[in-house]
């Protein structure tokens, strides 16, 4: 009896050791990274990812680990994934640009409209969830103000509360849009990174297709359609072609 208890105790202990919590893994990985043990750090980070967790910081750190292991393509992939959580993070943008320097293809990207960048910055200054909460709060305020408009004792109060309600409603819609936009962007699977050192883009989705151009590891492409094992992609400069699905990884 005692033996069985002991055995149970040990098995529980082992399973506990085995199943580390994401928080522990995270801490562990960060420690390993600070000791320049990048490959083991990466292993731990990837374990967290395998458990189904995701966050900007996690992907950012995975990207950093890959970068330190001189796998520019993978690091770009994870930076881009992190970027989906927060496209205005300065560290992330800096590291991504550095990693892109290690990829061979130079494609002229059309710069974003400045107003768009501002809106983007505002959008991603808060997370989608926070924008969602703000939306609900603003809607609640707008509702109260509308009540005040309807049942205000004096016309002045009514006037003020009407305009305030309209403003709250608009702001609420705006923050709702931000929240929705972030979610939409995150769920969008229309971009991919070339993972193979050298990958051929052909004019048709088969091996006999004429070679149009060559892409190297780390190049970002936009996915247009899929046919069998081939994907039609578009580069940032507008060129299109078919690439073998295995060669790329969706962000």
């Amino acid at each position, binding site marked *: 009896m005692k033996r069985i208890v002991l055995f149970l105790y040990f098995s529980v202990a082992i399973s506990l050791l085995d199943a580390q919590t994401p928080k522990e893994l995270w801490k562990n990985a960060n420690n390993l990274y600070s000791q320049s043990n990048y490959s083991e750090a990466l292993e731990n980070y990837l374990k967290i990812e395998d458990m189904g967790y995701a966050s900007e910081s996690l992907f950012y750190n995975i990207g950093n680990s890959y970068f330190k292991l001189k796998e520019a393509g993978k690091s770009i992939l994870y930076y881009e994934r992190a970027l989906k959580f927060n496209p205005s993070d300065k560290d992330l943008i800096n*590291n991504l640009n550095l990693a892109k320097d290690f990829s061979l293809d130079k494609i002229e990207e059309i710069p974003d409209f400045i107003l768009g960048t501002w809106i983007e910055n505002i959008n991603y200054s808060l997370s989608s969830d926070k924008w969602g909460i703000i939306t609900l709060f603003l809607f609640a305020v707008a509702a109260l103000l509308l009540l005040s408009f309807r049942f205000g004792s004096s016309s002045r109060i009514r006037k003020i509360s009407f305009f305030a309600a309209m403003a709250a409603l608009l702001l609420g819609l705006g923050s709702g849009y931000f*929240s929705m936009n972030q979610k939409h962007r995150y769920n969008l699977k229309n971009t991919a990174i070339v993972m193979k050192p050298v990958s051929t883009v052909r004019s048709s989705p088969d091996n006999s297709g004429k070679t149009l151009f060559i892409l190297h590891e780390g190049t970002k492409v936009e996915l247009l359609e899929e046919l069998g094992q081939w994907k039609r992609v578009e580069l940032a400069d507008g060129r299109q072609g078919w690439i073998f699905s295995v060669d790329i990884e969706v962000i």
Partner: protein
Amino acid sequence: MIRIYFKRVMLLLSSLIIVLSGAAQSVFTVDAPRVVGLDESFRLIFTASAEPSSFNPPTFAGFDVLAGPSSSTMSSTQIINGKRTESFQVSYTYVLQPKSLGKFTISSASVVIGGKGYTSEPFTIEVVKGEGSGSSGTNESSQATENISSDDIFMRMSTSKSRVVKGEHLIATLKIYTKVPIAGFENVKFPTFNGFWSQEVDTPSNIEFVRESVNGKIYNAAVLRRYMLLPQQTGSLTIDPSEMICQIQIKSPASSSQRSIFDDFFDSFQTVRKRITAHSVRVYVDPLPAGAPPAFAGGVGDFRMSAKLNRDSVNANEAVSLIVTISGTGNINLIEAPKIEFPADFEVYDTKITDKSSKTGRGASGSKEFEYPLIPRGSGQFTLGPVQFSYYDISKRKYISLTSEPLTLGVGKDTGGGTISSSSLSLGVNKQAVRSIGSDIRYIKTGSSKLKRGNHFFFGSVPFFALLAMIIALYFVLNKYLSKRIERNRDVAGAKNRRANKVARARLKTAESMLKQKQYSRFYEELHRALLGYCSDKLNLPLSDLSRDNIAGSLTEKSVKPEFIQELLSLIEACEYARYAPDPGGIEMDNNYMRAIKLISDLEV
């Protein structure tokens, strides 16, 4: 006489060959002319390269043995550059004469040398009608004439095949046939081979005459030239005629009258020049059949192919070679380098071709090596090829495609990448902006991980919509509640107003009737009483206790608005004043009545 001379030459030549060949390998050989005349006697010589202990002669079916076997021994020692070579040979010579026309085979003879038995090859001799060139002259006179016919000496060009496909090799042999002794050649014009790729093969260094029978006549034949031809065009190709002038030695015509005494001792010879021509030869070249595979590189024959990399793994920007070797027989020297599709990131340099083929009378054979120098620019695992090579197989009359195994090449990361940046750095020496010494990614995020499972978003989730619905519902509920309450409030006020108005009108009923009767002082008296009565009721004070100060104080305590108090007081004052004052007119009465009604209504609400 000339015949004897010639014979000696022949003998010498043949024995030389025997010596050479004997020295090479054969221990026991046989030698005799291949073609003899019916009346001719000839020598058959067996040669052994060592002293045999016994000799077992062959059977000579179809021949008479005139003499033999007579054995002779020859030994020689050579010292060349201190290297001593010895040769020794024993020969058994028979003199034979054929009995009849036809082909006869002399069976093999055998010897025992050093306890080991050796046998010679069976030897076939063709016996033809007509004079042998070695026979002592019966028709010497005809030879001696100046008219040397084209029968006596001619040249012939023969090809090994008359019908070939494009690229299939054939051998063209130019031979001279003669019955007369030749002193030399002049103005030799060898043929040109238009439409062929040609190369001389197996050309003997010295012209070597062998007996051959042509149309039943015995000639001394010699190969002048032998060419390997590869047709490059299709259709009927002509090998141009070749010609030369032969210097033929003939005995000068014996004019007995002028013959000196010396002439009897020395045959006088005279050189006659004769132009001989080999006729042109036609070769029909068929085109290769249609349906050549794409990898067909012009090879016709029988080939094998192998492909390999000189290294299995390299680093990026390092050189590696793919070597394709094609070996076999056929037009190997004309095979083009197989086209190989390399991964697009490979730099491919000019193919280096090493031809190791040799051309013989049986066509070219050997191998050809194609070396493709490559420099991979990117790292990764690459698959080269498969290398494809197609050729036309002559014997099978079809195209054969050979495919190599795919070759895998592991390309590692570039190890010498630093050199490029250092060279570019040296450019900007004079002026430089603040330059970062190194660049590195920013440090990892060590704060809270903010992990969340998958793509779980608050927006659009059930709680989000629930809360939103709650807000909207709350709005409507509150809206309804508030509007209801206001309505009810409005009703209460109306009722109160109506009740207050009623009370006021009831109180002022007598005052009103006085007003209608226009009884001035009575009206004010009644109004005054009504107001005071109202105040006493309202404030629960006896009428006797009512004074203006009293009323104002009590009303203020009851938090009645000061304006109403003021109004009440002014009305009471106006009533008191009017009771003792003369009648000023009806309008003032009406006015005061309305004021009182309003005041009481206001106070009641």
